[in-house]
């Protein structure tokens, strides 16, 4: 909590109500594992920041890199892609495709001058409500620390 308070002091927030920066993170969740895990976090009444906004896809393999770029272009401060653990994919091998695509996406984003913390690939199973909560909280705090995504600024400084 102490850390949170420090963050609060430092940030000159964009959200007028809370007075601190509230990042927007788009999370692509696969239906069978990660979304069910998020569901579990919900039914278990676990709290996680509202900044982490899920978009459900059938499989993490459906996540077209275009969606990630589009989200960043349109002002998302972070993007997460979550799928089943390797070997557990409901569609046999969909997450292996994700596994090979996302590092390229990440590298591309880094070359564009984006901080690596803004993009995350996570494996969350249907049983891991707690992990979902932890990823959501952790990433929100990380991105909050980085501040709003400002393409011009980041490109200049990097």
């Amino acid at each position: 909590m102490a850390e949170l308070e420090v963050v609060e002091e430092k940030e000159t927030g964009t959200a007028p109500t809370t007075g601190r920066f509230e990042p927007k993170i788009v999370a692509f969740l696969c239906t069978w594992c990660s979304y069910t895990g998020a569901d579990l976090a919900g039914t278990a009444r676990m709290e996680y920041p509202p900044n982490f906004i899920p978009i459900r896809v059938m499989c993490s393999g459906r996540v077209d890199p275009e969606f990630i770029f589009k989200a960043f272009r349109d002002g998302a401060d972070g993007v997460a892609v979550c799928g089943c653990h390797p070997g557990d994919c409901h569609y046999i091998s969909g997450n292996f495709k994700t596994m090979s695509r996302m590092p390229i996406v990440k590298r591309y984003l880094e070359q564009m001058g984006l901080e690596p913390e803004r993009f995350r690939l996570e494996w969350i199973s249907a049983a891991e409500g707690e992990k979902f909560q932890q990823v959501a909280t952790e990433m929100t705090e990380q991105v909050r620390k980085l501040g709003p995504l400002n393409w011009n600024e980041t490109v200049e400084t990097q």
Partner: protein
Amino acid sequence: MNEKTEIIAEPDVKMVTFTIDGKEVTAPDRTFLIKVAREHNIEIPTLCYNEHLEPYGVCRMCIVEVTRNGRRRIVTACNYPVTEGIVVETRNERIINNRKLLLEMMMARHSEVEVIRNLAKEYGVDTIRFKEQPSEECILCGLCVRVCNDLVGAHALCFAQRGPERYVTTPYDVESDTCIGCGACYHVCPTNHIKMEQMDGLSVVYGDVSLGPDKPIHIDFMQAVPATPWIDQKSCIHFQTDGCGICSEVCPTDAIHYDMKDEIVEVEAGNIIVTSGFKGFDPSPMYQFGYGRLPQVMTSIEFEKLSNAGGSTGGKLLTPDGRTPEAVAIVHCIGSRDKNYNEYCSRICCMQSLKFSHLIREKTGAEVYQCYIDMRCFGKGYEEFYSRVLSEDVHFIRGKVSEVTDFSPDGLPEGKVLIKVEDTLLGIVREIPVDMVILSVGIEPQVGAQDLKQKLRISVSPDSFFLERHPKLAPVATATEGVFIAGCAQGPKDIPDTVAQANAAAAAVLQAIAQGEVMLEPITAEVMEEQCTGCETCLSVCPYEAITKDEEKGIAVINDALCKGCGTCVAACPSGAIKQWGFDREQIIAEIDAVLADIAV
């Protein structure tokens, strides 16, 4: 020694009729006399005959008088082949006198051997006119040597020396390395001269009491389903020496085939019900309870075996040293409701422990101490049973046992252990000496459930049991179409709940079968012909091989029945020519737009 004769009647063997003790009998020609006599319940004493071995005719006890062609002779029944018209007398005066003489001689040399003493008593032999020698256990019947050589084929025993010096030994009097420890010699020995405990140091095992090796052919336990015996190839003589084969000889339905092997049968099925069950928690890591270290400590599953009428003690509750226990402690929640092991409640253990208390009180009258955290008697009639056990003078101690030990500064009576438990209702720590400690172990997912999970593409809940599609609305279905779960594979539950769930799963499957049609996911992918370049990228990513290339048109085609709608091809398509119903590019983009709507770019 004897004439080679076919014992088993072949269809073309002629039948002969003869008289035995005044009774006319019919038997296949040249059958050994003793076999015919036994079939007609005429008892002929013998010490060296075994129906699975070639007759030996060495003990001479089976002598009978045979009249053939008017000539009377004394012959040994074990190796005398019957022929037409003979007259046999098994107990006339002459025979009895001869047997008496034989027994007198045997008594001179084997006076302490029970089987000889009994026979001598039966025939009224009380005076021995021969010089008495120190009693020898071995009567040189040769059963052990013959069973080992002819039947087992191990050739680990033989005779040495001749005449009065003759004795049974291993070849060259050295420890035989061809002995396979089958125990056949021990079983056939009529005088208990060969002792099993001398072999291999095999001793009484508590829990599964057995002297020497288990019979290689056995039914696992009384209630086994199917209750068919099976052969343990590791201890079966036939699989070690190619000998024996008695079981296939005696099996009336010819059901034993030694060349049968385990095989993998492939079954094509449209529905799968997963009922992989559970495994009991292994309490060995909980060192404080002494499981595996103190013989008095057992798991609930082991106690169940002990108290079972088909168990090792025939259902008698005995301590490891063979006493009836005076005090028994039942420790609840071993590996359940424990942050260090499994956090969940295993549900069945409270009721199981109550049942145990009831059984112990009924069978032994021992004091029973139930050390529980909470009593959870949730089912129909369960609370009533709890009240009944309460009234049976069972001690209920609310508190978890901290230690089971065989040490006490004040000393413990022989064979007892001490349990230490805080009685949270009295607010004191109690130390109770008991004879038996039953650890009520929790339920864990079956070994291999993880493999099964990956094979069937189903999920597990945080407790590692298989996850149902919806806890209330689809409790037996899983995320994978056509795969259902029931019983402890889904979570700890007792028999009534398991049966109910299994019925539900079967009904769900029958519903699908009765429908005769399978509902497909509407979210399949479709190729837009005009945009497809026929690059075949999608073909390589599809996990279901649902995409083929239409060579004529030069485009990819998706088979709707095979496509499961994962959308991997949609993401992979470099020309954006594939759309996924329900998760199309425009739809997801619109979602992203909506999420980020309040941000000014």
